[in-house]
């Protein structure tokens, strides 16, 4: 086990300025919140109208950009060039979006490949640029309220955000003139706000059901340490999906097709309004295009039941990973606007066998936690956050199988190095394929990056020593480095955003991983059986070539016939048949093997060191 740690840090962070404030930002799918902490007390920052919850909506109104409530109003009025829920596109490539339902709400720029771009007001914009407008707005809001410069922030991301989406969020902050002190996971931030507020100790589940994403984290709070034990989630599951379900219901009731983006966005706004009304009232209606489609709470609950079930499947997964029973929790905390829905509270309560905490405002708690961490990072603190990486990272190996290098739910920062070698004489290059996901086979995981390590000096197979190091930093960002140890040929890879995992792919991969765990194991066993059988054939061939003289008449023919049956079995997908034929070979070669053994012992009585193991 050889380990090498290499750190690739971007530019040096300047020392904190005393007069510049560090804020906490919850950059949400549907809305965002900015908060500040002073002496361990966090509070949300309000705008001039006394509002703390700012819609994450951007209106490109001719030459100027409007963010927040005004932009949402423009959207509800059917204005063009209004962009909402841009968080769902962070770190995605154009190809990622092709088969997803996401595209309906945006006018995508079809001209570009690589990172997705959205068209608005005659411009072609990246999600990073659009998110940076939201961040700029929040920054200005904070500067106005605090009366001083704001240049640093802790920004929260869904625990399930992949490398590309995390990197994109950091870039958006940079564009908005904010130095990111740390990206922290939303449920972890909520735990921080909740735990410090209640001075809690023990094991807690943070159920974070927001506008666009669902996260569940299991944490232990002890001695001021917030230790994440496991995390699971679904990055395409949130209140937005409920809005879409309502919209689909309305379209079906009225016998309409999906309308063009601006009109569809208006329908989604109306659907959201109806959903919110149903939180307190048993009846609501979707007002759109001058018509009202009635919607009752039972109708709505039937629509979203499977969505809630999916969140509970994630909870089961996270608890299993943490090795904890649902009822062993010391508390369950609800976070995110979607947890206001009465049905969600009931189902979560049933699952954990206890009434969840909702004392802190579920819309504000993440930003409050981020603000507390921003203060801790700039002013110092006795508390410590220890987080984990949500998805396993691995390399493609022979046979298209993934060798996991860093397992999901490993604590970060983390670096793991592994040594590889060449398998052909004179091989001078090695292809490295980095994947992310839980499945056994490469084709079922998401490809993050591919690169070729060149300049390996030509030598016999197996002599080169190539060390590949994966590093995940405290922000959850990945870098990969490869080095040939005999010559020092180096290569470092910054994982490109266009290769980033798509939201819906993470979700699909995890769901598939649970459903296909069995199929994967069978597949792997089959591959292993084939490899084993081929090795046996090679061994037998070698033995006959070397000790052919020990064969009795007719024995060679019998063995060769059995080897042929094994070859046929290898070509099939029947593992039992392969195993059976290999076992049959044992009987056929049994006495030949015995004769070889006797001959070997007779010859080897010379000297043999006593092996300590046997």
């Amino acid at each position: 086990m050889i380990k090498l740690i290499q750190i690739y840090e971007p530019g040096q962070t300047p020392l904190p300025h005393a007069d510049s404030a560090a804020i906490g930002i919850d950059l949400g799918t549907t809305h965002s919140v900015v908060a500040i902490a002073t002496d361990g007390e966090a509070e949300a920052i309000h705008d001039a109208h006394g509002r703390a919850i700012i819609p994450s909506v951007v209106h490109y109104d001719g030459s100027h950009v409007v963010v927040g409530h005004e932009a949402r109003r423009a959207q509800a009025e059917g204005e063009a060039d209004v962009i909402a829920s841009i968080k769902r596109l962070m770190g995605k490539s154009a190809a990622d979006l092709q088969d997803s339902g996401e595209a309906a709400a945006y006018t995508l720029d079809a001209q570009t490949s690589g990172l997705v771009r959205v068209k608005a007001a005659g411009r072609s914009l990246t999600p990073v640029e659009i998110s940076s407008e939201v961040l700029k707005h929040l920054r200005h809001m904070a500067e106005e309220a605090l009366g001083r410069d704001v240049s640093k922030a802790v920004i929260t991301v869904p625990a399930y955000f992949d490398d590309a989406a995390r990197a994109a969020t950091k870039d958006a902050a940079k564009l908005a003139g904010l130095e990111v002190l740390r990206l922290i996971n939303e449920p972890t931030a909520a735990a921080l706000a909740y735990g410090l507020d209640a001075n809690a100790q023990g094991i807690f589940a943070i159920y974070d059901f927001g506008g666009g994403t669902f996260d569940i984290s299991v944490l232990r709070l002890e001695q001021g340490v917030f230790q994440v034990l496991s995390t699971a989630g679904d990055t395409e599951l949130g209140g937005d999906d409920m809005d879409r379900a309502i919209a689909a219901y309305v379209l079906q009731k009225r016998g309409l097709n999906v309308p063009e983006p601006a009109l569809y966005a208006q329908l989604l706004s109306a659907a959201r309004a109806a959903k919110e009304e149903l939180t307190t009232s048993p009846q609501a209606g979707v007002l759109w295009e001058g018509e009202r489609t009635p919607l009752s709470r039972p109708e709505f609950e039937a629509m979203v039941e499977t969505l809630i079930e999916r969140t509970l499947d994630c909870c089961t997964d996270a608890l299993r990973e943490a090795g904890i029973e649902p009822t062993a929790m010391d508390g369950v905390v609800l976070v995110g606007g979607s947890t206001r829905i009465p049905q969600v509270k009931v189902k979560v309560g049933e699952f954990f066998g206890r009434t969840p905490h909702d004392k802190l405002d579920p819309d504000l708690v993440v930003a409050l936690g981020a603000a507390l961490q921003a203060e801790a990072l700039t002013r110092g603190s006795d508390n410590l956050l220890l987080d984990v990486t949500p998805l396993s990272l691995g390399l493609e190996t022979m046979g298209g199988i993934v060798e996991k290098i860093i397992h999901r739910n490993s604590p970060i920062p983390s670096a793991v190095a592994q040594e590889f070698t060449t398998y052909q004489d004179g091989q001078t290059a090695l292809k490295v394929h980095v994947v992310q996901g839980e499945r056994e086979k490469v084709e079922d995981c998401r490809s993050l990056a591919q690169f070729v390590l060149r300049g390996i000096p030509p030598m016999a197979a197996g002599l080169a020593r190539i060390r590949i190091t994966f590093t995940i930093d405290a922000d959850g960002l990945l870098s990969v480095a490869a080095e040939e140890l005999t010559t020092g040929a180096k290569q470092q890879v910054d994982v490109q955003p266009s290769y980033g995992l798509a939201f819906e792919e993470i979700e699909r991969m995890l769901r598939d991983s649970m459903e296909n765990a069995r199929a994967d194991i069978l597949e792997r066993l089959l591959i292993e059986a084939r490899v084993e059988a081929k090795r046996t054939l090679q061994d037998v061939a070698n033995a006959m070539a070397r000790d052919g003289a020990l064969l009795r008449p007719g024995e060679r023919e019998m063995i060769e016939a059995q080897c042929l049956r094994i070859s046929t079995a290898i070509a099939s997908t029947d593992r039992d048949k392969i195993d059976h034929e290999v076992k049959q070979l044992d009987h056929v070669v049994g006495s030949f093997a015995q004769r070889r053994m006797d001959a070997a012992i007779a010859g080897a009585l010379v000297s043999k060191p006593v092996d300590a193991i046997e």
Partner: protein
Amino acid sequence: MQSYYEILGLPVSFALNLKALEKAYFDAQRQWHPDRFIGKSEADRAEAASRSMLINDAYEALKHPLQRARHLLELQGIFIDDETNPPPALLMEVMEVRERLHDSAEDGRSLMAEAESLKKAMAICTQAIDDAFTTRDIPAMQEEVLRLGYLGKSLEEAHMLIYRLKAAHAKEHH
């Protein structure tokens, strides 16, 4: 090979109090976690990051008895992993367990019984590792570490088979 015990400031022993391990881990991270080095020089931050990574490695390895035992052997220059060949007697033992598991693949009750007896065997094996390490009987420890690895794998397999049975039942009832 750097000693994980040294990294966490713990005495070298196979028997380990998990609470003490946790405390050592938290203390070490309090000192070296990158969050403590925001605004410091790049060199300081790089050092903190690599230390923090090692501390995580040490904690993860020492937390699990099998990895802990393997690390103790590594410190003696003996490397054992999943690919290490077992001595013939152990191999026979392993194959017998596998066979029993497969024979009872459709029988939930006997699978549960197998899982229970595997857990007991693992407890005995863990004790044997502790005894062997205490008396520095390294060959004995090596064999027990190999055994613990196989027992753990067999237990995983038993759990997998039980999970499959349960899933199949759930499907039938649906």
